[in-house]
């Protein structure tokens, strides 16, 4: 269900009027979404959904409780308010209580496009055809997914806080395989604006990768230079960027910890060519202007020229440590170079080129050791060109170690909610071969 700002304000005001708590916050969000899946060169499942989410957080002094519902009639809203307040009454006092925010000023960002909201099942079917038809002509098999959503998010409390924004998103991904299962290629594209989801180009790239990945040769496990395409960079670096938590670091249970309850802010943790920041206003990202608690999203530099400049501080931890709260690292921009992925390949003597990773997981968060596998397009690059496909690997590697070995980057492109470059690193540890294709 989509509500405009006035309608959202009416519902939140009504919920607040039902409450008796000292402080009460309401998060209200609604959305419509549509998706189409295809596989084996045919459409499989497809659907449209609409829903609403109302989350109520109530405080009596330092005692808090929460309840959520998706029903908007008065009886359901009163029931949810009562539930949140009942929980708050019986909860012990929260030593981590911080007062609710009053009115805030938010960045002027509008992550919404009418065209995305107007997308139809016919458009999705055309996108599926754009992969299926050329794949069939080449004797290949396509599988993919196209989805889009539009919605709104609002936050308000009884201390004067108010925020509202609309959002939209569309994404397309496709995997093309040979009929004998010996070759596979993948590509994806996403944007807030559906006309930027260029699905024909994406399908073409996946087909090309599938064709190039035939006759993969075995390369022994070991340490090799690599080129990680942006999707692979985003997957691996999420373990580093989303663990930039000050509290874990200060408590001694994070890679970013130092003995004595200290953290690594101010230390050089990556190569001098690495800068990572959040920028919700970046036109290729258009992030969300506020977080769940109503805290404004900000432009923040996390790593600058290899030096850790900032960690994520929640409102509670910031208050305890005498810092400014930062909000969670969102709208991440990993600053890249100027050229394309193709330019980076041309500039490379020898490397394993990796399209994307699969099933990445922490092995040891203390050392930030991560394992996972390569998938859907792994190649040997020699003297500036792709020479042949190689069989997939399992890796055991640290994203921070990789950030210390970067010898080249493409310009950054959008992957999910982040902007990341393709990255060339001088050494990457592959621990075993995977028979998977």
């Amino acid at each position: 269900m989509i509500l405009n700002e006035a309608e959202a304000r009416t519902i939140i005001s009504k919920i607040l009027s039902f409450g008796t708590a000292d402080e009460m916050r309401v998060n209200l969000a609604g959305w419509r979404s549509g998706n189409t899946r295809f596989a084996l060169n045919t459409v499989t499942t497809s659907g449209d959904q609409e829903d609403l989410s109302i989350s109520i957080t109530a405080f009596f002094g330092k005692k808090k409780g929460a309840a959520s519902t998706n029903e908007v009639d008065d009886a359901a809203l009163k029931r949810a308010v009562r539930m949140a307040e009942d929980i708050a009454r019986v909860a012990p006092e929260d030593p981590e209580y911080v007062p609710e925010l009053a009115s805030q000023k938010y960045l002027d960002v509008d992550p919404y496009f009418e065209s995305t909201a107007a997308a139809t099942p016919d458009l999705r079917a055309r996108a599926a055809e754009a992969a299926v038809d050329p794949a069939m002509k080449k004797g290949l098999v396509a599988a993919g997914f196209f989805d889009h959503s539009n919605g709104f998010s609002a936050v308000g409390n009884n201390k004067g806080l108010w925020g509202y924004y609309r959002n939209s998103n569309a994404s397309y991904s496709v995997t093309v395989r040979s009929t004998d299962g010996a070759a596979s290629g993948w590509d994806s594209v996403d944007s807030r604006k559906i006309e930027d989801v260029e699905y024909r180009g994406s399908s073409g790239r996946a087909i090309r990768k599938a064709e190039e990945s035939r006759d993969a040769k075995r390369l022994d496990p070991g340490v090799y230079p690599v080129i990680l395409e942006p999707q692979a960079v985003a997957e691996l670096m999420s373990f580093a960027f989303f663990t930039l938590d000050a509290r874990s670091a200060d408590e001694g249970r994070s890679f970013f910890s130092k003995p004595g309850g200290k953290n690594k802010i101010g230390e050089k943790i990556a190569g001098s060519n690495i800068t990572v920041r959040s920028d919700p206003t970046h036109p290729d990202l258009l992030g969300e202007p506020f977080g769940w608690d109503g805290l404004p999203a900000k432009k923040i530099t996390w790593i600058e020229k290899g030096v850790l400049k900032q960690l994520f501080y929640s409102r509670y931890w910031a208050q305890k440590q005498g810092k400014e709260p930062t909000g969670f690292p969102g709208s991440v921009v990993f600053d890249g170079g100027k050229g394309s992925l193709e330019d980076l390949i041309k500039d490379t003597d020898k490397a394993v080129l990796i399209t994307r990773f699969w099933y990445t997981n922490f092995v040891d968060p203390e050392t930030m050791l991560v394992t996972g596998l390569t998938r859907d397009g792994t190649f040997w690059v020699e003297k500036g060109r792709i020479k042949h496909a190689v069989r997939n690997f399992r890796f055991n590697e640290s994203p921070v170690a990789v950030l210390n070995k970067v010898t080249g980057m493409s310009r950054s492109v959008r992957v999910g909610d982040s902007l990341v470059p393709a990255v060339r690193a001088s050494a990457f540890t592959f621990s075993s071969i995977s028979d998977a294709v």
Partner: protein
Amino acid sequence: MKELTDIALNAADSGGATYADIRISRHRSQDIWTREERVQWVENSESYGFGVRVLVDGTWGFAASHRVTAENVADVTRRAMAIARANKTVLRKRVELPPVQKQIDHWQSPIEKDPFKIPIERKIDLLLRVNAEALKVKGAKFCMSSMRFLNEEKFFASTAGSLLEQNIYRSWPSFTVTALDESGAEFETRTVDVPPMGLGYEFVERADLIGLASKMAEEAVQKLTAKSVEPGKKDIVLHPTNLWLTIHESVGHPTELDRALGYEANYAGTSFLTTDKLGKLKLGSPIVNIKADKTIRSGLASCGYDDDGVKTSEWHLVKDGVFVDYQTTLEQVSWPEYQAARKAGGLPPADRSYGCSYADSWASVPFQRMPNIHLEPGKKPLTLEQLIADTDDGIYIVGDGSWSIDQQRYNFQFGGQAFFEIKKGKITGMLRDVAYQANSQEFWNACDAICDERSWEMGGSFYDGKGEPGQINAVSHGCSPARFRKVNILNTGKNA
């Protein structure tokens, strides 16, 4: 409720659908999170809505909404029909359903105490006492504890005439202790080995969380000074709290028929168990028997009927080491590739769905999801103590840790919560930095001993992921401790 479902089914029928179903469901959850002496979050959530699925000219359409009114049920059904028609342009393979049996029934999880009716104060008190007990152990610095309770009240109706009401409960208490060394330079964690279950609050009460708190804290502290493992090939004895996850990843996912045929190629992946291997491949040693089961008491995936309205059942996936079947839904029974593979593998034709259709919400489209999958206990009398006594040079692994497996389920790497060195039949001390890595088929063929039914128990997860858009599935996996010979052991420590 029937008035609403009739609106959808009549609209679908008169609009030309050859099959339709509607699920109206309410999903409730309660989450309680604490750490040390404080409560971090308590929330009760509800989500109510309906989803309509139609089959028109061999193509599926689906639409769902939270606005459960007669007028909107009719609108949403029309939208589902329009989606099915829009998809006809990309239809290269018609969906054919086998005859569907009419079912009218009610089913409920076998709970003794409704977790949503237990006072929150009592739950908070238990969790804070767990934290306090853990923190009494010297070196234990943090303890985070939680409870999560889920309930699905689901009403299903289909054009086959079925009317099914199901009330499903799931409960999961858990806690993790973190120990720091004196310099503050290193930390280790230990998560308790209490799995989620399809039971009520009685399961929480019987889990002895307070009794386990000090044991988990002591093991977290011991891990700080445990010997770093020597990598190489070793025999491993896996406790059910570890082996359940290996069963899930290396047998559960590869025996999903949709994966094997390529329906999940863009996301979850395909499978090394391709249809040409059905009835032929020696997936494990002859003592390995693996059963799928949607009916076992307290199983997370247990229910009376699946989301196709098919009565649930149990069947073998692996019999005497041989791969003999897949997990199926109604639609999949008609897939010619499946029937041809059965014939080629010397198996009788499939005449029924195994009932593996599931949608994680009213807003989600049902598709093939994993049932409970169990390794059957060994047939010869064997206890864990006897198995360890019979092992010369090995590692005994308890609890689930880091996990990763490739998209066709060949190459896996698993960690654990606690690792113990076995030398000449005795546990000689704790190890750290351990991960085992293997090929699924080689691993199951290296299984040379399975303890008997006395030590059979279930593990499981609320969060088995699959599909686009992603859906979760709760699933249990039972087994007895088992031994696997000469498995590749990695050292994952900082000096490795």
